């Protein structure tokens, strides 16, 4: 985003008097871009193109031995779209992503606002709250699998002690609850990240704005809505987009928590790709689902860039 606006400035004055120097300068500018460009081509361009190509090929274990992957047109795409699981997985991915983001963001923002008032031990508590984010996701999932066990899990014992539920809640063993459980665990994992970034954003808001709002007699809620939220907007976009990117492709958490079950109720596009590519070894069909994921992410990336550019534009005119 910034690279497109920055080079314009030094170029302008050099253009008229010395064209040769300008050419050399432009070459040098490109030289600085080159490493990034090569990196992008090798590590993003190549896999992306390969993945798209693969989705039109019969790509099986044989391919690895013979190097032959005959093109089969739209066969892979047809098969994936005819698969009942694809629709379910897409819907569950959407539910999982939206549910996780809403939960992570609301709780994260509430905690960030809470901690932005300095009080005794706030630093220590904030550090402790970071822990879920530091623990590897597979470890969290394994621990939560025990916590959410229907018969002997801590969560159900806790609820029973409080007389909130007589019968054990089938957190992971009922298809109607399992997706919710996965979302809850993912919220628990994602809250610290949201809190840290939003907390950082809150620190950037000038104190005098709050003083001015106080002088105008604004209520706390009004201050939050008219000062905090608008000033926090760029950070909010970053948090939501990054959260979206990491949530939509969820795999490890689900695999360790439920393995996609029970009765496929927690299958997502991520687990479906994994199943097609690495269990059924049909890499062509796996690539199709992968491409759908890339497409969804790309749409949001473009939206993000547009929003961001609009923000930058506003900042520039002031």
């Amino acid at each position, binding site marked *: 985003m910034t690279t497109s606006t920055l080079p314009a400035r030094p170029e302008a004055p050099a253009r008229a008097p010395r064209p040769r120097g300008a050419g050399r300068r432009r070459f040098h500018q490109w030289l600085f871009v080159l*490493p990034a460009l090569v990196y992008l081509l090798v590590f993003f361009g190549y896999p992306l193109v390969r993945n798209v190509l693969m989705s039109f090929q019969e790509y099986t274990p044989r391919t*690895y*031995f013979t190097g032959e992957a005959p093109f089969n047109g739209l066969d892979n795409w047809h098969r994936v779209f005819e698969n009942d699981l694809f629709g379910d997985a897409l819907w569950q991915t959407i539910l999982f992503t939206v549910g996780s983001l809403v939960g992570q963001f609301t709780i994260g923002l509430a905690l960030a606002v809470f901690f932005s008032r300095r009080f005794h031990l706030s630093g220590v508590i904030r550090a402790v709250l970071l822990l879920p984010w530091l623990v590897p996701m597979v470890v969290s999932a394994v621990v939560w699998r025990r916590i959410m066990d229907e018969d002997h899990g801590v969560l159900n014992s806790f609820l029973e002690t409080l007389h909130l539920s007589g019968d054990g809640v*089938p957190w992971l063993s009922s298809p109607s609850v399992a997706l919710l459980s996965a979302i809850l665990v993912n919220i628990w994992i994602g809250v610290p990240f949201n809190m840290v970034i939003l907390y950082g954003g809150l620190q950037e808001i000038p104190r005098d704005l709050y003083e001015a709002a106080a002088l105008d007699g604004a209520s706390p809620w009004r201050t939050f809505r008219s000062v905090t939220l608008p000033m926090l907007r760029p950070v909010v976009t970053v948090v939501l987009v990054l959260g979206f990117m990491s949530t939509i492709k969820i795999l490890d958490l689900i695999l360790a928590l439920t393995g996609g*079950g029970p009765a496929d109720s927690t299958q997502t596009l991520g687990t479906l790709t994994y199943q097609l590519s690495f269990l059924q070894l049909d890499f062509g069909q796996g690539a199709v689902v992968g491409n759908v994921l890339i497409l969804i992410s790309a749409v949001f990336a473009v939206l993000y860039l547009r929003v961001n550019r609009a923000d930058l534009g506003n900042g520039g005119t002031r």
Partner: protein
Amino acid sequence: MPSPTGRIAKPATALALAGAVLGFGLTGCAAQPDPDTVTVLNSATDTAEHEANQDFFDRCAEPLGLKVEQISVPADQVSSKALRMASSDSLTDILELDGSELPQFAETDGLRPLDEAGVDTSAMSDSGNALGSFDGTQYGVARSVNSLALIYNTQLLADAGLQPPTTWEELKEDAAALTQGDTYGMAFSASPNADGVYQFLPFFWTAGGDEAHLDDGAGAPALELWKDLVDEGSASRSVVNWNQQDVNDQFLSGRAAMMVNGPWQVPVLSAQDDVDWAVASIPVPQAGDDPVPPIGGTVMTIPKNEDHPERESNAAKILNCLNSEENQLAWGERVNNVPTRADAAQAYREENPELAAFADLVLTARSRTGEVGTGWPKVETALAGAFQSVLTGRSDPEAALERAQQQATAGE
């Protein structure tokens, strides 16, 4: 782009470097190891297992003047690792695969048929050989195989005055009688992956189920049995989340009086004193029916190596030595699996009477890929979907199996 003179060196170097990085990254390292070293790709990531393997490899390699080097990755990554190695021509001399993965590799034409390589498999039992064959050709040899049996808590059964159940009816009655307080009568794995399907097969097959025709109705009673056990409260509703390790943990903590599990749990079971246990055959629908458990285990294969045929023959010599009667017996006892040679299996049975149930089962056990071959992964996914939807009340057995058949044959 104009190219200013005198400054060419730096961008050229940068380009050359970038090119080198690209070239290096794409070709990978296809260097052949030392000619006297035989390389093996297996899943022996556990230290004890890795060392046990090395012991046996060394025992066979030293007299031949060879060395064996193992590359071990987690079991579920062996096939993808092997494929990556194959694409860069750096596949190991011996590739040890899970039996259920063999057809997909055999179909690629990348494996050497064992009779061409000079590996003798004539002394192995039919069921042992079934695990390593594809389309009538033997590509892999199993040193030992495992299966499933009913493992029960002798104390709890004695307290209830029960003998281990032999029929499904008895299983249901006994499981209900043994369910008390925190303890369920029965535990099994119904997880939506290979573990759950492996445990479902003895019931499905014994009932007459056919993996190529899931919807022929014969397998439905097996689903019914599992559903009854869960619905009547004799087994936990959490079975849909349990893998075979979880099932063993439940049994060891006294929360299950009986469980379905395999001989690989024997070291864990033997290492504790809290639960007294014994092994029985998995109950069958009617008294007198033959149990048909699945056969499991790994097979060793020899990937083709046209440029270095001597590496193939070294690998073959190692395989022949590992599968001598003496070595098979020793290996079987080391890993608590049943040797595939008839003579070694007989000796194993005599020396380990407490595990005789496993040794007997292997004789009637069936390979998962024998009938459907490369179609197995799809059948496995479909079967897992069937028992998961029945156990969670989403579907009745017949409808679940019909849907499973559609999934298993989709796109054919």
